[in-house]
């Protein structure tokens, strides 16, 4: 177990550097003058440009720039946005909101997806199975922004149940509909995954053994079948939190949620390299850590992995 964790951790390091370097390189090579918008309609004064070039070490070779930048980040110096705010400030308000949204989405996804998957996996080919199959296919096929606008239109505009855009510091209940939107596609995927996992394990020898032990149907399903079938599902859900951190851009835009997605999007569109890099680095880090934790969780849940 310890060696397994260590190996996964070591594998993470080159990936972390690779991904952040890729981002760094892409962002700093955004077309146009990196500081064009900063000084308003006028061109920036040479002294300012020089100062910024110095600040971001732009005269060094790219790889040196990158490592100097990373070193700053390690010391929690995330720099400032072009409008002068501390990036760490911006992150500390935006990040919790996106995390909240991601959590709500994963919960919705898990509860609905697993329930549908278990029910259909146990009784395949029935009416319920076909109904769930068709509706999951529809959900998978509807792009997030279509679902978003539809739900916003129906709940917010037409029925007036929710406010079409959420408040600046949204509560969990405000995030239910946005969470549902964010979760919609993956929820369908979870239910398909659970269904096939349940259906496959339902014919496993150890389930037959459990029946032969004279256990009740409820016990066979809830202990023997579910434990094995849900291991891959739970770990998938864990990884989803990471995915949602960077994948909530569209949903946040539709419901006007002041999360990380909006900040990054605006920064990319405004070509604010100095803001994009630290935030994306943090998102990637969260994403990779979520995946690592999930891998370790897998090893805890499935004793076979520990002895590889």
């Amino acid at each position, binding site marked *: 177990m310890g060696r397994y964790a260590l190996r996964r951790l070591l*594998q993470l390091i*080159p*990936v*972390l550097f*690779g*991904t952040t370097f*890729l*981002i760094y390189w*892409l*962002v700093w*090579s*955004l*077309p*146009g003058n990196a500081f064009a918008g900063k000084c308003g309609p006028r061109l920036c004064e040479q002294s300012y440009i020089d100062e910024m070039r110095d600040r971001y070490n732009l005269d060094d070779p790219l790889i040196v720039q990158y490592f100097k930048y990373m070193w700053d980040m390690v010391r929690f110096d995330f720099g400032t946005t072009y409008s002068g705010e501390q990036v760490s400030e911006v992150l500390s308000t935006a990040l919790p909101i996106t995390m909240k949204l991601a959590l709500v989405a994963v919960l919705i996804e898990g509860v609905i997806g697993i329930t549908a998957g278990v029910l259909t996996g146990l009784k395949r080919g029935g009416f319920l199975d076909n109904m769930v*199959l068709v509706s999951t*296919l*529809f959900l*998978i*096929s*509807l*792009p*997030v*922004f*279509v679902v978003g*606008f*539809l739900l*916003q*239109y129906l709940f917010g*505009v037409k029925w007036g149940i929710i406010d079409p855009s959420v408040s600046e510091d949204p509560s969990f209940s405000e995030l239910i509909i946005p969470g549902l939107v964010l979760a919609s596609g993956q929820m369908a995927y979870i239910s*398909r995954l659970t269904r*096939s996992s349940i*259906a*496959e394990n339902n014919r496993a020898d150890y389930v037959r053994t459990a029946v032969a032990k004279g256990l009740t149907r409820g016990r066979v399903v809830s202990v023997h079948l579910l434990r094995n079938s849900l291991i891959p599902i739970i770990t998938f859900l864990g990884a989803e939190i*990471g*995915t949602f*951190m*960077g*994948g909530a*851009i*569209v949903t946040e*835009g539709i419901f006007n949620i002041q999360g990380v*997605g909006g900040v*990054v*999007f605006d920064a*990319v*569109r405004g*070509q604010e390299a100095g803001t*994009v890099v630290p935030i*994306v680095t943090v*998102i*990637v880090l969260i*994403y*990779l850590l979520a995946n690592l934790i999930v891998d370790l969780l897998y090893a805890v849940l499935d004793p076979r992995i520990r002895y590889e």
Partner: protein
Amino acid sequence: MSDPGAFTNERETEEQQHAPEPFLGEEEAPPSGKQEKARGLWSDAWYDLRRKPLFWVSITLIVIFMLMALFPSLFTSTDPYAFDLSKRTDGPESGHIFGYDLQGRDVYARSVYGAQVSILVGLVAALGVGLVGGAAGIIAGYYGGWIDAVLSRIGDVFFGLPFVLGAIVLLSTFIDPTKSGDPTKIKVVVILAIVVLSWPQFARVMRSSVIATKQSDYVQAARALGAGHTRIMVRHILPNAISPLIVMTTIALGVFVGVEATLSFLGVGLRPPIISWGIAISDAQTYLDIAPHMLLVPAAFLSAAVLGFVMLGEAVREAIDPKLK
């Protein structure tokens, strides 16, 4: 005991009583095996598929959208660029069943013409991802060792970028967001961005499928007979390991149509004068309450197209996955 087929000793004792029949070989066997000709994976899958309504619905949808992409004039004779500013955001009327958009152009005609670029981007991106991911997966899975480690880590680097985020950065880097740019170049960049960010997932699936196939006896046998690496990979492993990749690519085709629309919607992908469902939806979003048809019609086209490919992929998956039988 020279005749291994019969119970020779029995014959010695029984010969006088029962003149032994010539042994009944398989050719004389009753028609027990007749209707059970060995079915391969794909013919078996085809048997299943033909009986699935899901399959036929998806095929119908795909054919319709393919025709729409190739010959849009079959579906509408209205010019998608013709505008009548006096009719902007107007609802349906005769001859224009889905109404007009912001510039007073026919929503239906624009939705029909929108199929072309979406299908094109989806198709080329799916093929590209299938090829790149498939090749990386088969090489990593077959050779293993450090080649596998390096390829897997490279894959992880791209996998580490959340898709939408990565796509926004990539596209903003290579397409100046402030200019309209060359449509062909934009399409190419969008396709490349999708491929670059998606191939690791395909490589992973292919890799594990190849590793499973590599263990099988016929591959070991081919190796023992001295077949070269390329031959083993192409002739023995590929045909047996590729089915999950095919399913995934089919589904991806649909998903990428949606991705293209999402990126165009965000304003980082395709942009006017290209006609695209994503752009139409993006234009319509602020008018949702006064002119919902502007958003709903292209959204319906988009969803139906995605549904067609996703459904086909799912139907094939069910048919070839022995675990779900």
